């Protein structure tokens, strides 16, 4: 063609298919991850122009150093009581995850997802919000519920889909919902919650309310069109919303490169939309708290929305249905340069003289005990597949506000089938 350069020595076009650096069995070297000096990042005014956050979109906001001390302008200067409360939520979240994972392996439920290594991104973030700010989580923010004091018994009832499950056994385990705790119903469809959070924030602004919204999405799900819609709507209407991107490096078996991480950061996407952007060490509880509080203050004062990339690592498999040894090196978890959020906070409190190993052991034992007791209590209401569930007719309720004729007919059919199955009389349900 005339519009194409002549010659035979032109390179062939080639398709780039991203590949993670390490596969199973590989030796891991994370030295290329830019681990910044704690305290070295500037903290702009919360009401600054979005473009003023540009340097922070490629940097990494860190507070806690290897010396276990807090450094720099992002130090939220939390009192030791608050830090101990945070540590308590961390310990309970991890104990809960351990026990529920085991419960799935024992056949008490069908499914579970841990948040190991990412506890700070939910617990510390939630603590930086007001208790009635609305959160639109994905499925790995159980720490938000725990930080807000939602009873773990109710969480287990939901996981077991038993007769006390507030969601009436309709939802897959961990898809919690709590209007009382301003925790939006979790959906299996990824990133759908992001434009919903923006819409909620718009509604709050329309009504002249003072509440803000925050949403969480994994880095993999930022590739969904919904996330683009959310960022666009957030900026167009200056919605009081925080978009938390949990970059835990992995979307099931796909490394973050498949969401675009090879050439930029997720925080940097904020700038293209005109959102403020912060990139934060997601395993540094103080940095997470400080960034979330900054964004919350910004939103609450009508200064605009913020996108926060929490740079962290998914320490465990994606879910109970996943085996990460099939796609990544087992060394990754050990070598992760930003450590473990719980250990880092614990060591910080010890360095402050506000904590010690003995108290940590007691805390961990107490949490395990609390979870164990709640588990036993929940089991009285039934475990999955063992009879104690909500009555059959509830399957047809809440599809609509009222039961239309076709659902009435189908409900009668279901009850008829049940009577046919148990001619000797219905088991307790």
């Amino acid at each position, binding site marked *: 063609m005339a519009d194409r350069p002549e010659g035979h020595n032109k390179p062939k076009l080639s398709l780039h298919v991203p590949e993670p650096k390490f596969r199973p069995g590989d030796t891991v070297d994370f030295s290329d991850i830019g681990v910044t000096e704690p305290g070295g990042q500037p903290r702009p005014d919360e009401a600054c122009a979005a473009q003023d956050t540009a340097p922070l979109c490629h940097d990494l906001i860190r507070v806690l150093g290897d010396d276990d001390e807090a450094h720099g302008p992002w130090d939220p200067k939390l009192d030791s009581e608050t830090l101990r409360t945070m540590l308590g939520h961390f310990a309970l979240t991890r104990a809960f995850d351990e026990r529920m994972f085991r419960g799935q392996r024992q056949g008490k439920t069908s499914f579970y997802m841990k948040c190991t290594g990412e506890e700070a991104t939910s617990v510390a973030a939630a603590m930086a919000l007001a208790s009635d700010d*609305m959160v*639109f989580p994905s499925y790995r923010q159980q720490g938000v519920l725990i930080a807000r004091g939602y009873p773990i018994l109710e969480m287990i009832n939901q996981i077991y889909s038993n007769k006390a499950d*507030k*969601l*009436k056994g*309709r*939802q897959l385990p961990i*898809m919690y*919902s*709590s*209007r009382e705790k301003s925790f*939006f*119903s979790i*959906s*299996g*469809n990824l990133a*759908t919650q*992001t*434009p*919903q*959070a*923006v*819409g*909620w*924030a*718009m*509604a*709050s*602004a*329309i*009504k002249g309310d003072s509440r803000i*919204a925050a949403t969480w999405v994994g880095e993999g799900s930022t590739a969904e*069109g*919904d996330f*683009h*819609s*959310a960022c*666009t*709507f957030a900026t*167009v209407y200056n919605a009081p919303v925080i978009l938390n991107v949990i970059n835990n490096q992995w979307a099931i078996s796909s490394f973050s490169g498949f969401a675009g991480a090879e050439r930029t950061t997720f925080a940097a996407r904020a700038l293209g939309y005109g959102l403020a952007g912060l990139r934060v060490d997601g395993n540094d509880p103080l940095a997470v708290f400080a960034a979330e509080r900054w964004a919350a203050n910004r939103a609450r004062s009508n200064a605009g929305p913020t996108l926060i990339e929490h740079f962290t690592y998914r320490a465990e498999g994606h879910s109970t249905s996943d085996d990460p040894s099939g796609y990544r090196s087992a060394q990754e978890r050990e070598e992760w340069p930003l450590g473990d959020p719980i250990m880092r906070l614990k060591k910080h409190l010890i360095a402050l003289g506000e904590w010690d190993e003995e108290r940590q052991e007691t805390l961990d034992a107490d949490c395990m005990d609390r979870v164990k007791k709640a588990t036993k209590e929940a089991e009285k209401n039934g475990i999955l597949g063992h009879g104690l569930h909500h009555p059959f007719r509830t399957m047809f309720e*809440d*599809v*609509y*506000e009222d039961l*239309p*004729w*076709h659902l009435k007919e189908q409900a009668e059919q279901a009850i008829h089938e049940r009577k046919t199955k148990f001619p000797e009389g219905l088991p307790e349900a």
Partner: protein
Amino acid sequence: MSESIEKTQASAPGEGETERRLNMIEAINDALSIMLDRDPDVIVMGEDVGYFGGVFRCTAGLQEKFGKTRVFDTPISECGIIGAAVGMGAYGLRPVPEIQFADYIYPGLDQLISEAARLRYRSAAEFIAPMTVRSPFGGGIFGGQTHSQSPESLFTHVSGLKTVIPSTPYDAKGLLIAAIEDNDPVIFFEPKRIYNGPFDGFYDRPVQPWKKHPQSLVPEGYYRIPLGQARIVREGEAMTVLAYGTMCHVAEGVCREKGIDAEIIDLRTLVPLDIETIEASIKKTGRCMIVHEATRTSGFGAELSALVQERCFYHLEAPIERVTGFDTPYPHSLEWAYFPGPIRIGEAIDKLLQD
């Protein structure tokens, strides 16, 4: 006739209320204005609905009257529009988003199917999506592939959604008010072919404006037509015609031309369906013709046909006839060859009566 049926409804306008002649656009505008006025939680939003008043003028003047935070323009993102509306509903608002053409609702489908429709169920009624998605739909306007579609069966197949399609200005206002007040998500499809006047399918004749049609007489104030109630367009004995939207008028026109004493039922709401009115009519007439613009295979006509067969089998004197659009994308130049018009409907009538 339909007048008497509507007058018996509890929510019908009281005696002495002023009535005006409105076309369907004006009736929709009136319904939105009344609801924006009555309920501070009602929000109208969509592409070009604000300052400009909508590409079909359905929202004309509303932003000026109610302000920019009640009636506003949105980015061109159907996913964002529906998604934001779900969030607003969760907050406690009653959003009425507009999708400019039903043909463009697909980018918002995940938000509608996975979110709006399921929210009440999956949260055990902790959160609801009391939204009404308005969207112009249907063909007959040389709209080609992407301004003519009738995607109603994609929505009737989704549990948790209600689907409403008016066919007259009177119904458009009353049904839209009921949809906005409904606590379930409603897909409200407006047949754009009959925005300005009823269309009887005889495209080579002059179009009549709404003002000559009895159903253009619309009460001034608030009234609602309950969802789930069909309207008997005309009573008859020879056969039952099940239709909605534009096709009510086309079926009526063809029956008038051919002198057929058909009972024509305007379904008005597809889900929940008024099965009692349908059953009673077919048990009386023994014959059933279903007419819709949408493509045939897995269209809503298939559901109607199955329901009639299951519930009226021993009363049927002939196989059920389905008159629909062909199973092709909606063509531009061959519009009138595609559209289920007088010839296709006429032949189906002949076939039904000959058995």
